[in-house]
């Protein structure tokens, strides 16, 4: 065991930190607010120009072949400044990593360099109106007709679909299969496909998510991702784990843990006095989660896909954001409820109070994560 960062990692951290310091500017956030989007194409393009989008991929696919710890450092430093990186992560980790893990050579050569250059961003559509936690109950149908796949059905709560270029879609290709887990396949569907309509759904947490209706959407054969009817295995073996490990926001936690410390130190309110010990607990938990996060990243670097640990880091960090928003707005009193950039911490605590649901529910509810930890991690039996 050795928890020292190597010279390469230190240099990289310094580079990203300097970039974040100069490039994450207030007008970035104003711009996103104006467009009502969590994504900032101009900023994403700058990340791509630096070679940071997909940097963990092999060079032949447009990456830089660096380890996953680089990705942790990258996320940490950018999130420390609240930079918009969720689409970057979605494109690289959810979609791109899935292509790496089980895509064809043709798909790798086509999609990965484009994602890395910032030309393509991706979204991931699994949930349906009647298939949430029971995601394998999905009904969106893909039928093979005239050498093409034809998709009909609905997806819901998809982040980023409004302006992503490709949507990774889970569809039922064999409705007669013996179990709901069999007969599912994945497709990379170009956003502009005829018959695909995307409707935004407003959340209480600032950004919108989307509902997609697939009406006779034609998808060429080569865009089926992974083996036919083996989609569920790939989703649970790879994609959902990438997603859960990928959305752990430890950089933001570190920043907010410090910001709350400053709020308490600068305040003489009764709330601040009472909450300083809770805050101490919170700060300890944040650092503990950071090191668990590094361990999960390291496990991926060892070629493992740690299911239980990915769920753990997802739940822990989401629940930490929740505690931060709770304690933070408690410290602030009424000021904690004020919306907008004139509010303390530019309204971020109030924003997290509302948007915590993205962290808790996205990638699977905490209840589902606990099932996974218990069954995959502890080996407890499934419900009959």
């Amino acid at each position: 065991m050795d928890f020292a960062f190597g010279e390469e990692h230190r240099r990289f951290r310094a580079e990203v930190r300097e970039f974040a310091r100069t490039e994450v500017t207030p007008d970035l956030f104003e711009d996103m607010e104006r467009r009502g989007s969590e994504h900032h194409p101009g900023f994403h393009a700058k990340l791509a120009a630096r070679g940071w989008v997909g940097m963990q991929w092999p060079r032949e696919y447009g990456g830089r072949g660096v380890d996953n710890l680089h990705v942790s450092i990258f996320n940490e430093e950018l999130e420390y400044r609240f930079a918009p990186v969720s689409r970057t992560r979605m494109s690289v980790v959810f979609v791109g990593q899935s292509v790496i893990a089980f895509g064809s050579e043709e798909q790798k050569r086509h999609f990965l360099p484009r994602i890395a250059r910032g030309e393509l961003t991706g979204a991931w559509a699994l949930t349906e109106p009647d298939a949430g936690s029971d995601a394998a109950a999905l009904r969106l149908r893909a039928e093979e007709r005239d050498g093409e796949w034809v998709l009909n059905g609905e997806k819901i709560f998809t982040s980023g679909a409004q302006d992503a270029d490709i949507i990774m879609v889970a569809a039922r290709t064999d409705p007669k299969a013996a179990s709901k887990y069999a007969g599912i396949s994945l497709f990379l569907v170009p956003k502009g496909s005829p018959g695909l309509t995307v409707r935004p759904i407003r959340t209480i947490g600032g950004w919108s998510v989307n509902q997609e209706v697939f009406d006779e959407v034609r998808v060429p054969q080569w865009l089926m991702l992974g083996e036919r009817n083996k989609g569920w295995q790939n989703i649970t073996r790879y994609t959902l784990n990438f997603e859960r490990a990928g959305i752990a926001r430890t950089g933001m936690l570190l920043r907010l843990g410090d910001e709350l410390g400053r709020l308490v130190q600068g305040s003489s309110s009764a709330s601040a006095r009472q909450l300083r010990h809770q805050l101490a607990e919170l700060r300890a938990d944040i650092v503990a989660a950071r090191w668990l996060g590094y361990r999960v990243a390291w496990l991926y670097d060892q070629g493992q896909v740690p299911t239980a640990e990915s769920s753990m880091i997802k739940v822990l960090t989401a629940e930490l954001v929740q505690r931060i928003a709770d304690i933070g707005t408690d410290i602030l009193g009424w000021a904690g409820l004020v919306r907008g950039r004139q509010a303390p911490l530019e309204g971020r605590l109030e924003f997290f109070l509302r948007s915590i649901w993205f962290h808790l529910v996205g990638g699977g509810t905490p209840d589902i994560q606990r099932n996974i930890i218990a069954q995959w991690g502890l080996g407890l039996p499934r419900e009959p």
Partner: protein
Amino acid sequence: MNFQPNDEQRMLCDSARRFFSNEFPLARVRETEAKGLSAFLPVYREMGRLGFLGIGVPEEAGGSGDWLDLALFAEEAGHCLVPTLPLTSVVLSGQALLACGQREAVAELASGERIAAPAWLEGDEADRNPPAATRAVTVADGTSLDGAKRFVQGFEVADEVLVTAIAEAGVCVARVPRTAPGIQASAERLSSLDLAHGLAFLGVHVPGAAVFSLPWSAWLDAIDSAKIVAAAWAVGASRGALDMAITYAKDRKQFGRPIGSFQAVQHRLADAAMAIEQASAMVHYAAWLRASHKPFQREAAMAKLVAGRAVRQVTHAATLTHGGYGFMEEFDIQLYFRRAKLLDLLIEGPAVQRELLAEEEALDLARVC
């Protein structure tokens, strides 16, 4: 960065696990509860002979291995509910005596042949204040100790007591034979059935050569180092309790199915597992900082806080999983539960850690070493 224990660490953990499962199964925990710490001494001496007690002790004082090795070993010991005598007699006392320049004394403690009981608590729980209720006064042929200490651990088997006191020139540490005239000991039995002693010092005479003046910060360094090990002990005990609960939850059937298939049980144990992984990550990092001679005080406090909470939460969850059997004496899970709070308080309790962290001025959680 590497989260994998190296070959030596793996061998250390394997041999510790084998040793404890052979020499100190839970039946011996019960025996120690019934007969007192002296029943543990043969195992303790053997730990000394095998070098387990010397982990984290500098080579020139007869030890080997660093603080991370020690933390990994402590997890194995905690897993088997090994009494925390090594922690008080070697880790805390040893670090304090090293700061006093007493290498040979440390070597004796690390051999297991000699046992020290640190006596530093004056209130109901640890605080960071220098001793006030125990005074050391210089007399013609040495020092005279007057005052009182509370909750001294390992006193019943100790050869000597390591007493912190306030002298005219500042804080000092006195090595006092357990049987020195003027020590009055009163035993209190704890929830774990361990004995803790209250000690009164009534003009206890200590030769000058056995009294060492020590900056209070040096004592606190020893405390901060030791609490990482206490935190590791707690992580190990948490793992032991969770393992037991998982086995039980797979085995025990109600409503015609294993209770471990019920979500209510699964989620409680999933939370326990998360608490352990979080605590373990924090403890390893703190231990590594200490081993690498980097600033570790903040992370030590975090480790103690998180691990102390984990052991209480996990042992509670594990006991609850056992239902009625959980609190029956003949079942083993209660052995873990009855030690959780002790492990949380050991060396320093959570209140001190919360205060230390709340008082921290540098707000730089993102700091990396």
